[in-house]
């Protein structure tokens, strides 16, 4: 059947609500409004206001309440409108969700899922557009997911809800309207491994989330120029699937990391370091990176586009890597 990324997310939430009565969705405008990005449209009518629970604008309060409800035996899905707003709940996520299992010596699990929008490309300015999932991937105790495909949008949620530990799911805002074919019975998917979205032998293009479509476009252009690029979708940003990254680099001997986060202290830096540490002698060229310009994301369309990883910049970086070294 035809599905958009948004509809796939909604179907995932609906599946979970039907399968497990401990599951409920809570966040700002998830109910009467239908979700700020219309992901939960229609769910209030189907499941009622207890389980599709509108909250006040109190990110610290309702994210912390999600942690408490998880401690109390529920399986909450907490929606935060954007990653920028999640900073208001950072204390609860980092100081409580990520630490309670450890501080309690293994006694208290936090089976909580937090979903939020991330990323730029919609002229929303500097307080609605950042890509901070790399920050969250720094934190032990959290699992960080970035669904980039319809299958992952539909299937990651249920697997995340089975995890006894907190899971954060980052949905790139530019993906909601992406549509394609999705099996009617598309089910849960694993949340531990990276996936090869396009096999190739000349260079590994390593990415995740909202930049995957641009990377696949870049791979097509590179193919026209005789460069056979492999596209690796990380899917899970913490813990990283080192084996998949290293196996790809072992095949292609070249790597470019494409990450909408800023370059300094970023997820792309971490992936690059792991390649250098563990696959240095497989490399025929220095690892390349394509990241966002180090500015708060601007409003003006031409400036915003100039700040983000583009097909042109990805192609250029891949060619520079392919042309370098042996």
């Amino acid at each position, binding site marked *: 059947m035809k599905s958009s990324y948004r509809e796939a997310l909604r179907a995932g939430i609906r599946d979970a609500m039907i399968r497990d009565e401990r599951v409920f969705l809570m966040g700002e405008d998830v109910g009467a409004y239908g979700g700020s990005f219309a992901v939960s449209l229609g769910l209030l009518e189907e499941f009622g206001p207890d389980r599709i629970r509108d909250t006040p604008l109190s990110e610290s*309060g309702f994210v912390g309440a999600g942690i*408490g409800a998880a401690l109390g035996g529920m399986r909450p899905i907490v929606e935060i409108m954007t990653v920028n707003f999640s900073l208001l709940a950072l204390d609860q996520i980092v100081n409580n969700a990520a630490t309670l299992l450890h501080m309690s010596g293994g006694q208290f699990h936090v089976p909580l899922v937090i979903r939020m929008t991330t990323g730029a490309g919609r002229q929303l300015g500097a307080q609605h557009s950042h890509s901070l999932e790399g920050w969250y991937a720094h934190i032990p105790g959290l699992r960080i997911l970035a669904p980039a495909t319809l299958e992952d949008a539909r299937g990651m949620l249920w697997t995340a809800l089975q995890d006894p530990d907190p899971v954060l799911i980052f949905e790139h805002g530019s993906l909601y309207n992406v549509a394609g074919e999705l099996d009617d019975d598309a089910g849960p998917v694993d949340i531990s491994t990276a996936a090869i979205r396009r096999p190739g032998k000349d260079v590994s293009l390593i990415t995740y989330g909202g930049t995957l479509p641009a990377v696949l476009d870049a791979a097509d252009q590179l193919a026209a120029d005789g460069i056979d690029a492999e596209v690796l979708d990380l899917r899970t940003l913490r813990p990283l699937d080192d084996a998949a990254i290293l196996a790809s680099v072992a095949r292609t001997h070249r790597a470019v990391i494409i990450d909408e986060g800023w370059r300094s202290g970023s997820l792309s830096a971490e992936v690059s370091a792991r390649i250098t540490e563990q696959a240095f002698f497989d490399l025929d060229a220095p690892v390349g990176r394509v990241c966002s310009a180090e500015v708060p994301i601007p409003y003006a369309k031409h400036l915003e586009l100039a700040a983000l990883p583009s097909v042109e910049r990805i192609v250029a970086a891949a060619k520079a890597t392919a042309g370098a070294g042996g």
Partner: protein
Amino acid sequence: MTGTSVRHSGSVDAAHSRHLLLQMLRVRQLEEKCVELYSAAKIRGFLHVYIGEEAVAAGVMTSLAPEDAVVATYREHGHALLRGVPAGAILAEMYGYVEGCCRGRGGSMHLFDAGTRFFGGNAIVAGGLPLAVGLALADKMAGRSNVTVCFFGEGAVAEGTFHESINLAALWQLPVLFCCENNLYAMGTALVRSESQTDIALKAAAYEIPAWAVDGMDVLAVEEAARRAVDAVRSGGGPHFLELRTYRFRAHSMFDPERYRTKEEVARWMERDPITLLRAALETAGQLSAAEWEQLQADAQAEVAAAVDFAEAGTPEPVEELTRFVYSEPGGDEELRTGTATRAGTAAARRHAGKTTGTP
């Protein structure tokens, strides 16, 4: 009732009063031992003792049922002890040993115990309030009649999270009892120097929550107010709020030179020591003989002495286990996962205490 002070009505069973006196003595003696052990470098990190405030935990804890939940702050040794965590498991935790209630991973500020539904031990001021709201939300959604009690200091009232949490609890009519331990100082910042409105019960009342101010040095007043509030919460009356007016006799932590208050002020408050007050009342009423008082002290001392023995005999967790409990372990214990089991170290501490003193 909102904003008014509650005083106990006077007629209280003598045996029960002596029980409350013992509970306060147990906390007092444990805390004094902690200070001693800190000075002897057996305990490290930050240590915040509850001396002077014992009536609050003693009065509230006796009002709870086993299936209720408790969320506390970093000054929580007394709450853990009176909730039923063995003194040995508490001390072993501060020693950093695997026999501690959190295997030595939490320390003084992060005591947890699944078996008694004791959810910490939260060292971010106001950080525990949303957890309490969520625990209560889970109980309400699951149709359980449990109460979640959340302790926090008056310093938490300045945090945004306090207001978010109180509003959520009131909006959703959740079964939470908020217990504000107003000891007048957030570390060294006096309430009058941090709040434009210093009547804390009044702030809670602004959220349509029934709120009382209570003399937190009078354990009988605390217990009466707590029982009344817990009953109301349990019977579907929505969240309630107690402002317990108390005072910390010792420094904020072991690193506090106490430049912000006078010795005279501390001395004035010590005249209202909750243990002295109850002891005097019982003696005046002829309900506490000298021998009974000696026996209560001896019982508390014996329990603490046994706890020290237990902690001293503790063992460090092998360093090879450093990275455990960051993520759940496959095939983990379902009883632990659902918060229905007691940790092995905590159970051992309980057995040890029972063997040596007969104290629960």
